[in-house]
């Protein structure tokens, strides 16, 4: 039996409390994970500065090389994991078995992480707008045009409270080690695999072990991460977002309410974008915050909904080992029932029609012995008012919403990724000015098609470093 210890600044710690991570379908115990307690983090916080000190011994340029090597090891090597080892294929199997994500999607996520790790130089160049990277090591320096700059680390470490169900989020923290900031990670209880494998890959590539701490554990551990780290990244639901919104020490990630808007100038050609819309809804099992949950149009709403329903409605559960599997199950008991009931209730509201029902050949909710599936669901809303017009669920769900173009921006609400397809300069400018949109695509870009050279929900450089004034000589007379 694989046992995975707590990692305290690189040192394994065997806890008296262990939890079992089990296969969602068979109940087979895949590993015993040693559990940290909150006090342990508070104790270890006292050595957080050492993590950055150790990383600063290695030039960022070299760390970028190590990240690339780590990417290769992560993707291809059999790496130590607790009391055993794990090959890439075992990684995919285990991640699939505990998160429910089909194996081919786990493999695709590995490639995504690999891409980010092997393109770190370009990513940091883009996110820093081309600054000489030693500015982040020394805290100050002169950029190419001769201007003195200072970037001061806000914290020697980044704390992270990671989710259980979305293996896709890990790309967000990969630039942290190359930026010479240590990691304090609370992995999701069902997705322990990526943090441990990634940490091992980094260390085998030459990153000092004392730069990384991993604390599997309960709520008290999450609370301790939030309390002890001056910068933290947390993933959660709307409640978590509301709790930390506006807190400069916390970067909070949750539901995205990502959308596709078809401008009046292109909406009559909606069939040209059907593939784009369908993929944005269903890829990665519709689980991500960057999956589309709303398509907003001024006309043809019913036709678009029907066309998407014809395409997505028949998709049903397949074994997680099947390369064609498109749906991930809900592994938390009762969760799928609750979501399905919410949608049924939403469909009772005026102007809401579930379009997929007639193409599905069965109910939305498919219950299995140890998990449940929700099959793709497309609803048509004749106005933005119904609840479902702006809802997001962790499966392929989208509302096609009828809304005049001039009212779209005032109705869509907070939107993580907005793909707006339009050639109208005035509408484009309004979209550019809309502060409730985070990532904006103007043009035919799938909502999931992220460019890693772009910031995601805030630039991590701005989050981890403070751009402040620094002078070594008096300024010019004025």
């Amino acid at each position: 039996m694989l046992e995975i210890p707590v990692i305290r600044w690189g040192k394994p710690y065997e806890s008296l409390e262990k939890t079992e991570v089990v296969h969602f379908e068979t109940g087979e115990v895949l590993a015993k994970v040693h559990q940290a307690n909150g006090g342990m983090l508070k104790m270890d916080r006292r050595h957080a500065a050492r993590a950055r000190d150790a990383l600063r011994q290695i030039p960022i340029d070299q760390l970028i090389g190590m990240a690339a090597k780590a990417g290769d090891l992560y993707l291809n090597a059999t790496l130590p994991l607790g009391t055993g080892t794990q090959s890439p294929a075992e990684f995919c199997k285990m991640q699939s078995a505990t998160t429910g994500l089909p194996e081919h999607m786990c493999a695709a996520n590995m490639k995504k992480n690999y891409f980010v790790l092997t393109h770190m130089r370009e990513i940091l160049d883009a996110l820093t707008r081309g600054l000489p990277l030693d500015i982040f090591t020394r805290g100050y320096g002169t950029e190419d045009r001769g201007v003195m700059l200072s970037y001061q680390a806000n914290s020697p470490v980044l704390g992270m409270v990671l989710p259980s169900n979305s293996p896709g989020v890990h790309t967000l923290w990969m630039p942290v080690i190359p930026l010479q900031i240590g990691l304090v990670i609370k992995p999701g209880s069902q997705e322990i695999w990526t943090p441990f494998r990634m940490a091992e890959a980094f260390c085998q590539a030459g990153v000092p072990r004392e730069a990384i701490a991993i604390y599997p554990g309960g709520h008290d551990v999450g609370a301790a991460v939030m309390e002890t780290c001056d910068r933290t990244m947390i993933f959660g639901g709307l409640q978590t977002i509301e709790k930390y919104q506006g807190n400069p020490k916390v970067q909070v990630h949750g539901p995205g309410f990502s959308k596709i808007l078809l401008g009046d100038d292109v909406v009559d050609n909606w069939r040209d974008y059907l593939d784009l819309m369908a993929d944005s809804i269903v890829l990665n099992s519709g689980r991500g915050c960057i999956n589309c949950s709303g398509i907003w149009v001024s006309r043809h709403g019913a036709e678009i909904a029907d066309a998407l329903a014809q395409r997505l409605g028949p998709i049903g559960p397949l074994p997680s080992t099947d390369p064609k599997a498109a749906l991930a199950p809900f592994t938390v008991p009762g969760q799928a029932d609750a979501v399905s009931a919410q949608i049924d209730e939403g469909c009772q509201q005026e102007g809401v029609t579930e379009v997929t029902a007639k193409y599905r050949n069965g109910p939305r909710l498919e219950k299995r012995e140890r998990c449940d599936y929700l099959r793709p669901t497309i609803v048509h809303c004749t106005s933005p008012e119904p609840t479902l017009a702006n809802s997001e669920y962790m499966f392929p769900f989208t509302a096609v919403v009828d809304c005049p173009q001039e009212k779209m921006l005032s109705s869509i609400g907070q939107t993580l990724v907005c793909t707006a397809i339009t050639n109208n300069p005035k509408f484009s400018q309004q979209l550019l000015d809309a502060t409730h949109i985070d990532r904006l695509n103007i043009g035919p870009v799938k909502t999931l098609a992220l460019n890693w050279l772009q910031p995601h929900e805030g630039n991590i450089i701005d989050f981890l470093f403070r751009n402040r004034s620094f002078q070594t000589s008096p300024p010019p007379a004025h």
Partner: protein
Amino acid sequence: MTAISPELAAKVSAARERLDAHVRDIIEWHFNPATGCPFWLEKAKTLGFDPRKAVQNYDDLKKFPSFEDEWLRGGPIQRWIPQGLKGKPVYVFETGGTTGIPKSRMQIDDWKTDYEMFSETLPDDKFPKGSNWLMLGPSGPRRLRLAVEHLAQFRGGISFCVDLDPRWVVKLIKRGNMKEMEAYRDHVIDQAITILSAGHDIKCMFTTPKLLEALAMKLMDQGSSIRETGITGIFSGGTEFTPQWYRFAMDELLDGVFMTPTYGNTLMGLACGKPFDPADNYKITYFAPQPRAVIEVVEFKDYNQLVGYGQTGRVKLTTLTKETFIPGFMERDEGERELPFDKYPWDGISGTRPFHEFAKTTTVGVY
């Protein structure tokens, strides 16, 4: 049943006989109109049996309906005062109460008796007689505040205490106001450090796991330690006192200072932990102060059915004192049933933690 030695079996049997006899005395007291309290005398009319005749041993207590939590909320508190104790000074201690009406228990001397019994279990070299105490726990209407003070006095010392309102802490946590919670915790720890630095020769302390962590780390930040403050013995308790936390505290917080776990509440009194034995690998086993209180670990689906030894069940508590009779109160905790032990020849419980069905909604504060 797991085998136990004949000597221990004899002790278990004798303890059971004492418990049965105690049950008869307590039932006679509480259901005799001359000595019983209004609540039970009134309730007896609806039971359909005469407890004084029908209850002859501990198992007969199952004839009572489930004791309802709600009976302890609200007044008049006088309905719980036995006629036989009328005129004595009465204390009221509360549990819960962050929102709504708290549960309350009236007490006269029980709290003193419980802690005097507990005092006998404390090693004198770690909790020296005559030394002073710090009560670093909740103040206000909690029994613990007065009880620890009495314990100190009973052992010839004086107890210092802090202001700590746990209801406010729970409210802050429920609101997600963690910064305020942390500030309040720091305020409490500052009070403690001030007292500890004031030359009062404090050697003994009660505190909670979270406050102990906070105190130890604050002292470390100041280049000091719990040992350096002069403390030699600590007792602490609660469902957060897990084996892992116990080991963490021993290895990393206490710098060799002795600590003993306890499990208790306003209804039961104080359960004692089996003395630390490295062979137990930090497993903490508690034993109720029988016959004054009895802990049973019962099936989740049938509260009259004990689970097997080593099996998990919900904590059922029965209080049997002349001041209070509470048969079969279902606690908000669960744990594993443990074998009797030489010093405590009756069932114990280990692994106490919040009952899994409530755990999601239970807010654990600093206390």
